[in-house]
């Protein structure tokens, strides 16, 4: 037996290599105290290089390492979104209790590892890379959720996410196994070929149930109802920088593989799964939006809103067209901007108010700190899909794609969902602008009673930082994201081109 080393295109692999190298350096840095404080810089440098490599590979369109990965428009665009989200999280985490308690470098290593998983996932074209990428994404996230070790909610969210997530992974694995059995292949293209070659495999029960289980696994990752239940809990419980990262980057990467697996590997079965996905999308839209209505925790509300938004995005896959993918990627990009703006403000506000993300803590902010209020306002308007924000264009794009493919009822569902969503997004805006600055209700952000005994009795929360709204690394992401949400609402074409770059990558497989 001879060893046939696979051909490796290092240029195409460069983003992953850069990220891996950075990861190793960051892990090593954990050992040396002197280097530790450069951790965020190191991480940002890593992400910058990774982003540079991704942009360098902008026009790449090739299979890497015996078909395990594929770098193309879809991978590049969605990886970029994940990288941006990670970079923002690094900034938001500076001085965050979670980062401090976990150890700065360790925390960053986990984040980078998760990001690496996302980049791999975005490029995966084989079930093995798919699965391992997904786990590489998830496992550090489980840990990250629990990194605010002093907060009960943080650990709770970590455990919940881990257990429910593992159930999802197991389900996904089972589904992958069934598809492997039905198609006899692990490469996405080979699966498609295998399913089409076998007689009747396109409507075989084995295939279809496998598809269903895979869909469940992926729906879980992008928080589609009824597999959404971890989302609000974890969003609320996890340290906010982690939530911000999770809300955005996970969706980007998971949707990348969702698109690729369903449109490439399962593309021939599009007629079989589209109704199921449409139903899931509609259910998510309803569940997410109504669930968010009466929430008092901003993060939890954003969690529910994330479910609804995932429903909107899933609609892009339902169409199984390039336009749908374009719309999805566009929406996702806009979603990055809106969520970053929102979470950045939440982070700042949390540090100012003793880690409460209750909506009532926002009251009167518009008058006192307009620089904080505006990003959140624009974020809420954008999430609600009001012009002149990218959110509006995103909805427009999705609806156009849906109607173009005769999914008008789903488009109407999006419209209805958006109406319901006004009920909670605007509550935030109202709190910001339309209420007198007020006594925050429910100030028991940390239940001091349940603190570990060794630090019980400490008076003020050591992480409280009244001047958080003057820290550039917290304010800048908010303002830039707000500017992006507005800019792409007024001049959307660059973002449309960006999104279409992703869609074009699939031109071989979908109309």
């Amino acid at each position, binding site marked *: *037996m001879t*060893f046939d*080393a696979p051909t490796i295109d290092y240029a195409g692999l460069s983003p992953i290599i850069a990220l891996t190298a950075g990861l190793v350096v960051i892990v090593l840095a954990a050992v040396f105290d002197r280097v*530790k404080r450069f951790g965020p810089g190191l991480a940002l440098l890593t992400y910058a290089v990774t982003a540079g490599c991704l942009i360098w590979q902008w026009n790449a369109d090739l299979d890497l390492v015996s078909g*395990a990965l594929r770098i193309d428009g879809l991978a590049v665009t969605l990886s970029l979104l994940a990288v941006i989200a990670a970079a923002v999280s690094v900034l938001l985490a500076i001085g965050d209790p979670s980062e401090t308690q976990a150890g700065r470098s*360790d925390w960053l290593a986990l984040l980078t590892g998760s990001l690496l998983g996302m980049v791999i996932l975005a490029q995966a074209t084989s079930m093995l890379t798919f699965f391992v990428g997904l786990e590489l994404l998830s*496992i550090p996230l489980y840990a990250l959720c629990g990194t605010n070790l002093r907060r009960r909610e943080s650990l709770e969210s970590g455990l919940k996410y881990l257990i429910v997530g593992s159930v999802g992974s197991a389900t996904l694995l089972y589904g992958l196994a069934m598809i492997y059995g039905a198609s006899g292949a692990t490469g996405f293209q080979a699966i498609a070929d295998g399913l089409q070659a076998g007689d009747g495999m396109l409507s075989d*029960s*084995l295939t279809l149930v496998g598809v269903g289980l895979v869909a469940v696994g992926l729906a879980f990752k992008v928080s589609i109802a009824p597999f959404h239940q971890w989302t609000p809990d974890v969003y609320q419980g996890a340290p906010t920088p982690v939530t911000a990262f999770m809300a955005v980057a996970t969706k980007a990467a998971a949707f990348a593989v969702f698109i690729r697996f369903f449109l490439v590997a399962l593309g021939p079965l599009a007629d079989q799964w589209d109704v199921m996905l449409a139903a899931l999308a509609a259910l998510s839209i309803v569940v997410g939006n109504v669930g968010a209505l009466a929430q008092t925790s901003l993060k939890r509300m954003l969690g529910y809103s994330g479910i609804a938004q995932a429903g909107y995005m899933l609609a892009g896959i339902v169409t199984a067209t390039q336009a749908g993918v374009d719309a999805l990627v566009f929406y996702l990009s806009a979603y990055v901007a809106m969520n970053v703006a929102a979470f950045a403000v939440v982070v700042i506000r949390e540090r100012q108010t003793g880690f409460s993300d209750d909506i009532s803590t926002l009251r009167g902010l518009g008058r006192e700190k307009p620089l904080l209020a505006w990003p959140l306002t624009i974020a809420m308007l954008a999430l609600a899909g009001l012009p002149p924000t990218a959110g509006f264009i995103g909805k427009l794009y999705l609806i156009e794609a849906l109607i173009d493919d005769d999914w008008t009822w789903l488009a109407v569902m999006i419209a209805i969902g958006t109406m319901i969503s006004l009920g909670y997004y605007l509550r935030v805006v109202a709190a910001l602008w339309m209420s007198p600055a007020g006594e925050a209700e429910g100030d028991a952000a940390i239940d001091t009673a349940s603190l570990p005994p060794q630090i019980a009795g400490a008076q003020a929360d050591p992480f409280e930082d009244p001047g958080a709204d003057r820290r550039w690394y917290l304010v800048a992401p908010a303002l830039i994201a707000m500017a992006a949400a507005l800019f792409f609402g007024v001049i959307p074409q660059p973002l449309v081109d960006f999104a279409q770059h992703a869609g074009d990558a699939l031109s071989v497989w979908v109309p």
Partner: protein
Amino acid sequence: MEQIAFFVGAIGALGAAFAVVIVKNPFYSVLALVIHLVFLAGIFLLLMAQFLAAALIVVYAGAVMVLYVFVAAYVGGIEEPKWDSSPELRIVGPILAVALFIAISIAVLGSGLSALGTPGPDDVPSGFGTPEAVGHLMMEDFLIAFEAASLLLLIAAVAAIVLAGRRREDRKKLPGGEGA
């Protein structure tokens, strides 16, 4: 012969699996899982996966289970209280699970896949399931997956340190500050 081996293995694996779910004491559950894995390794062998059977026993039943035992010992083998805050889950859950089992079984048995009714092809490549063959595949076709898995282990290690490691400030009983 094969049938007997299968049924022994299957009954053993299943029984151990039930035990994992049923026994009250976490220690016994861990032990039951070890037994389950041993039987499962046997079934792996029947499926011509020698390397994996070995890996399962060595890595899993050996190393990982030790970890379990340690943790179970550390946190104490707490028996679950009889009282259940939501007993309906105890009923609904298994019913649904059984339904799922039926559904998957129907999917498998009802499949038109021609190879299903057979024990698998005889003309498997030589060295099927041997470490050598698997290693070749891993280094050739699935290099990325392999490397990613190794990184995953690294990350998991970091995560374990983060979550379970005792921190300096804990020992000093001091609240953490910047750059801790």
